[in-house]
């Protein structure tokens, strides 16, 4: 039964094409963008290249630290949201049980 329902859902959500001419409309918008060009390779004098490499390594080190910190932060956020989700889920079990024991007061309109 569940699989039939899921198949019906798949059928209802089958991908559809955009209106005719979509590609042309996208390319028209792209045409106002700066053109993409192949990367140019410029040769530098060797001393300058060494200095640039050292600076690059230093910057890369900082960048990598920042990247790691960002990854840690994103992971910590993900864990926090998961922890709160689980907490809410278990509180909900208790909430449902208490409501079953003590149903909301009749507002006078019920039977």
């Amino acid at each position: 039964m569940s699989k039939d329902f899921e198949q019906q859902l798949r059928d209802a959500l089958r991908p559809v094409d955009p209106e005719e001419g979509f590609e042309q409309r996208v390319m028209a918008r792209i045409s106002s963008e700066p053109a993409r060009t192949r990367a140019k390779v410029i040769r530098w004098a060797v001393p300058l290249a060494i200095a640039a490499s050292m600076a690059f390594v230093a910057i890369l080190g900082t960048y990598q630290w920042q990247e790691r910190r960002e990854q840690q932060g994103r992971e910590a956020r993900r864990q926090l949201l998961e922890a709160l989700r689980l907490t809410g889920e278990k509180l909900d079990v208790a909430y449902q049980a208490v409501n079953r024991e003590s149903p909301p007061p009749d507002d006078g309109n019920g039977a």
Partner: protein
Amino acid sequence: MTAFFEHSIAVLGGMLCLCASASALAADGQLKLPNFEGLADKASESVSITLDPALLGLATRFLDPAKPEDAAAKEAIRGIKGIYVRSYKFDEDFAYPKSDVELVRKQLGAPGWQQLVQVRSRKEQQKVDIYILVEQERANGLAIIASQPREFTIVNIVGSVDMRKLHELEGQFGIPKLELEEKKP
């Protein structure tokens, strides 16, 4: 105000009257959780989260106030100093050591911890116990122990706990409140 919070506040109020004169009791609300590392291999799903004050602070910095669920989370954890979660699901009944879960329950017999709610469902063989740590008439810790034959979850929150905000998170993220409304004519 929901029946749940009316009930819990009534229980809490009664208990606070009894212990109003008590001095600060249990340490800081952090439970000693058994080492469940070996269970991860046996479990079909496992969640082990340890957010001490430093990591919690880091996580908070990465919450996006523009996202409703992040904003709600930030509000809910105001005053909280640590969150510790262990949750495991298995493909067989009681593949986890019940004694370890009971050891955690025993810690909640220490001074200061008050049981707020106890749920027992015979049909689903489900147990849910919720405790709060009361210190100087404030809730400074929360513990939830939920167990079923094929899963258990332990949640320990340290710090000032706002239970209403924690419960209201259901409408913001995670488990959505699904109110599918009729189309307006």
